[in-house]
């Protein structure tokens, strides 16, 4: 028998690890082989949908947070709770409750979080040194790493080094990664984008947060502006925001670097987490087998292995020393930041109409990113556009 | 057994009647030429015989066989096209051997027959060439050669010489004549050039508007055209026609029913004014070397052409026109010959 399992990564190290899980699964299911199919991340959700709708469903697969509610609502995800409850030594309770939010509804479990990756600041130590500034990690240690300081530092960096102070996630903050760009500051200011079917963009906290970003882009000109390619990873921006999995890119960077927590704000500390889970598809032909494999992949042992790439949601693993030292690229002290963030963090907002909401938001957010935009009015427009969908 | 019989043949394209009932018998070995003005249906008729157009009505026999629904290749006819239709991507040899090859004739026999035909047509030296490397006359000969190798019972030619220049036309004309003499096949030849028709045909069929106007030997048509149309169509420059009233006095041999009289330019002679059957004034005199073509104006205002051997009088001279009585042609109002 063969199980088809869709993943978005084509990275060899990732696939090697995943194949390792398939290998160890043979211990309990000797005849079963698992085939991991890579669907490129850009169109992952879409292609997955085609496979489901197109009558070519995989048995199990990886699912991004923004698609989880849509898929759960559409009834294409299988409840894996019975299987997990029966699995020996699985200990479902070990998973951190906040991390499970997206994937459970009362007793039903639609999927298991597999990567629970907090957003952190990546910084270019060389540029900070050149500008004669203390780096974010040091500032955080002193408790001075807040939004105001963030703006100040970024501006100085731009002025002294000529490089950009900050770049949004992957430089896509104005396009496909709007939420990743806006969420952290809004949370830091104590706001939210939406909650309980109500839009939060036009609340004062959010407005203040976005206003700061707007100032940084157009007044200070310290954030890579729209239509420009800054690129932290090639040394053209001093800071960016990203997930730790990106540390793998830093190997070849050619400059000294570090990671730091997100700056705090009036709303206090508010780490943001991006998440993905693994699920079993109702349409699949071998649902039970697939569920067994999901249980196998997410047992404590395997989660610990996966932690080198994909930060875990099991508290036992998070608290272990093994996790803090699991990533060769990141010093233990910095990994602590990660563990900390996972424990405290909130997952990115999601919704069963995410694609529609994002599409509706997009043009209004575009309008926001003009030099002369009125931030408050623009955010009002955003809310007007998405409110009906919430 | 390669006579041809057309009985009540008609052809409609959509609503248009193009051939409107043709009856004709072509004897074995006869050389028949279809002439007629452009659009009269010569090609259509020929193509119906070949099987390239189907027959809307009537019966076509080749030999004893009714061939209305027989495929072109099975009728035992071969056709030489106006454009020659040589396959541009094949050599002369392959062009000539193509039909044999398609019919599955074994290579060595094919070779023999192609070479025999090539010898007949003096194409031996050209067998390896492509059509584009041939002159017009050579292409023409290849086209004929292709028809010959199939050893058809009937040859069909659709204006095979019209793409050649005048000089070559004269030459190829005589080659086709001698080919017919040699092979003895039945041949049907379409042209709108009446010199070609005159020189080649055993029998000429004059067509007009999808109908047969007259059938006869060249001499019959030239000397006793059956009607006005044939009279003017055969002979070049064409016959001068005059209402009989325009002539002062009665003409010799004039029948009662006649209302028009015709006389060929080459039958007219210049005489002193008043001494011919009609007077005229010379308008233009075209010197062509051997003879001159005179455009003369009759008192009625009509212009006659006169072919005049030797020195021509200058323009504006007044002359008389004389003709031998036997050379006059009389026609009734209906256009039919009146004798």
């Amino acid at each position, binding site marked *: 028998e063969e199980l088809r399992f869709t993943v978005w990564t*084509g990275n060899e190290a990732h696939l090697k690890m995943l194949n390792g899980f398939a290998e160890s699964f043979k211990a309990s299911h000797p005849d079963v082989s698992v085939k991991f199919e890579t669907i490129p991340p850009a169109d992952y959700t879409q292609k*997955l949908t*085609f496979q489901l709708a197109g009558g070519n469903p995989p048995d199990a697969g990886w699912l991004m947070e923004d698609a989880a509610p849509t898929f759960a609502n559409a009834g294409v995800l299988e409840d894996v709770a019975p299987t997990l409850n029966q699995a020996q030594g699985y200990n479902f309770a070990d998973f951190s409750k906040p991390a499970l939010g997206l994937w459970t509804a009362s007793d039903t479990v639609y999927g298991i979080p597999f990567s629970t990756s907090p957003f952190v600041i990546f910084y270019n130590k060389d540029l900070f040194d050149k500008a004669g500034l203390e780096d974010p990690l040091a500032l955080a240690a002193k408790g001075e790493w807040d939004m105001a300081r963030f703006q100040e530092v970024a501006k100085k960096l731009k002025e002294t080094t000529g490089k950009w102070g900050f770049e949004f996630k992957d430089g896509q903050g104005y396009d496909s990664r709007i939420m990743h760009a806006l969420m952290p500051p809004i949370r830091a200011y104590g706001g939210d984008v939406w909650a309980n079917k109500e839009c939060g963009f036009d609340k004062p906290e959010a407005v203040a947060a976005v206003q700061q970003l707007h100032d940084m882009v157009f007044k200070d000109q310290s954030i890579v502006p729209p239509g420009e390619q800054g690129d932290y990873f*090639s040394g053209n921006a001093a800071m960016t925001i990203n997930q730790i999995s990106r540390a793998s890119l830093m190997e070849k960077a050619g400059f000294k670097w570090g990671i730091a927590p997100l700056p705090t704000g009036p709303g206090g500390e508010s780490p943001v987490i991006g998440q993905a889970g693994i699920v079993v598809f109702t349409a699949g032909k071998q649902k039970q087998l697939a569920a067994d494999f999901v249980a196998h992949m997410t047992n404590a042992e395997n989660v610990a292995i996966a932690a080198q790439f994909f930060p875990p949601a099991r508290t036992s693993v998070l608290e272990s020393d093994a996790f803090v030292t699991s990533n060769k690229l990141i010093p233990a002290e910095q990994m602590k930041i990660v563990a900390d963030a996972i424990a405290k963090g909130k997952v990115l907002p999601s919704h069963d109409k995410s694609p529609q909401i994002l599409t509706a938001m997009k043009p209004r957010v575009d309008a926001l990113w003009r030099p002369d935009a009125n931030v408050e009015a623009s955010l009002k427009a955003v809310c007007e556009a998405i409110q009906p969908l919430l | 057994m390669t006579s041809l019989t057309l009985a009540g043949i008609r052809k409609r394209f959509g609503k248009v009647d193009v051939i409107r009932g043709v009856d004709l018998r072509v004897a074995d070995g006869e050389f028949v030429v279809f002439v007629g003005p452009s659009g009269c249906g010569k090609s259509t008729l020929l193509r119906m015989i070949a099987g390239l157009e189907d027959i809307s009505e009537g019966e076509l026999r080749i030999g004893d066989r009714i061939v209305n629904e027989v495929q072109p290749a099975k009728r035992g006819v071969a056709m030489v096209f106006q*454009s020659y239709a*040589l396959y541009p991507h094949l050599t002369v040899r392959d062009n000539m051997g193509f039909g044999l090859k398609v019919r599955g004739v074994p290579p060595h026999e094919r070779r023999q027959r192609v070479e025999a035909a090539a010898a007949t047509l003096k194409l031996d030296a050209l067998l390896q060439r492509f059509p584009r490397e041939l002159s017009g006359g050579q292409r023409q000969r290849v086209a004929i050669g292709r028809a010959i190798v199939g050893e058809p019972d009937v040859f069909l030619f659709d204006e095979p010489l019209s793409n050649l220049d005048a000089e070559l036309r004269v030459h190829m004309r005589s080659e086709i004549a001698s080919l017919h003499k040699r092979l003895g096949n039945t041949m049907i030849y379409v042209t709108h050039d009446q010199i070609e028709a005159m020189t080649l045909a055993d029998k000429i069929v004059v067509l007009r508007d999808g109908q047969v106007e007259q059938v006869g030997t060249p001499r019959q048509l030239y000397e006793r055209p059956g009607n006005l149309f044939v009279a003017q169509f055969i002979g070049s420059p064409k016959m001068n026609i005059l209402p009989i009233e325009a002539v002062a006095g009665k003409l010799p041999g004039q029948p009662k029913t006649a209302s028009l009289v015709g006389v060929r330019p080459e039958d007219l002679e210049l005489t002193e004014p008043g001494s011919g059957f009609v007077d005229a004034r010379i308008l233009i005199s075209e010197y062509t070397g051997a003879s001159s073509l005179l455009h003369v104006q009759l008192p009625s205002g009509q212009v006659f052409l006169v072919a005049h051997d030797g020195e021509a009088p200058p323009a504006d001279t007044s002359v008389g026109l004389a003709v031998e009585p036997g050379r006059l042609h009389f026609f009734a109002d209906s256009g039919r010959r009146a004798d």
Partner: protein
Amino acid sequence: MGGLTQKQLRIVNQVCWTLALAVAAIPFVFPFLWMISSGFKSASEIFGSPSLVPREWQWRNFVDVFTYQPFARQYFNSLYIALTVTALTLVISSLAGYALARLRFAGAGLISLFLVSALMVPEEVTMIPNFFLIKWAGLIDTHWPLIMLPVFGPQGIMATFLMRQYFLALPRELEEAGKMDGLSRFGVWWRIALPMSRPALAAVAIITFLNSWNLFLEPLIFISSLEKFTLPLALSNFTDPYGTPLWHLQLAATTLAVLPILIVYLIAQRQIIESFALSGVKG
């Protein structure tokens, strides 16, 4: 006469025109130069320096392109799909075009009319039902839809009309000679009409090949396995594991994808342009 003869005037005129054309050519040429040069740059240099000459020639980009994803395989996919589509289109459209141009049968006019109407309908319109059709046939994530849809879609019909137009202009007599020689209808088509239609076939082949080679929407919808990707999809798939474009690889791959076509085009350009002119690509 202002000192210059007509001829000299004409030369001056021509030089001015040529200069103007050269300027107009810049936006046509520059993207290629930039693309090629960027294919040799490192990721950071692409962002850093606008110079056309790479500071350091990164030959290994062109190696990485192949190790990053099964690019050779994807390249092959595009190639074989495009060739298959081209071959099928040539056969099918020239058969139909021949029938429409040469054969008399009841309904010919109606069929032409129907086919023409298809030319006015964008593929997007029928894409969704076609998706279900392909799904029903169990051909999702195979190359079949990428072959069948272009062959039978508007592209194929355009080809049919091109061929029809060309056949109409061919002298009938050659085919009739073939018939007299004993060829079947199919024989006439295959041995006479087709060999004479090389320019039209070339034009159709070029248009069809390019269209298939550049097809984007269909693969986007129907293909999900990496090793079944075609080039256009593969090109936009040079991203790091998290979806961020790896520009240096993307541009190197783009160069690899475009260059062979350009080179073939350069070599064949005279014939290509002539075949378009001869076949009177007019629709």
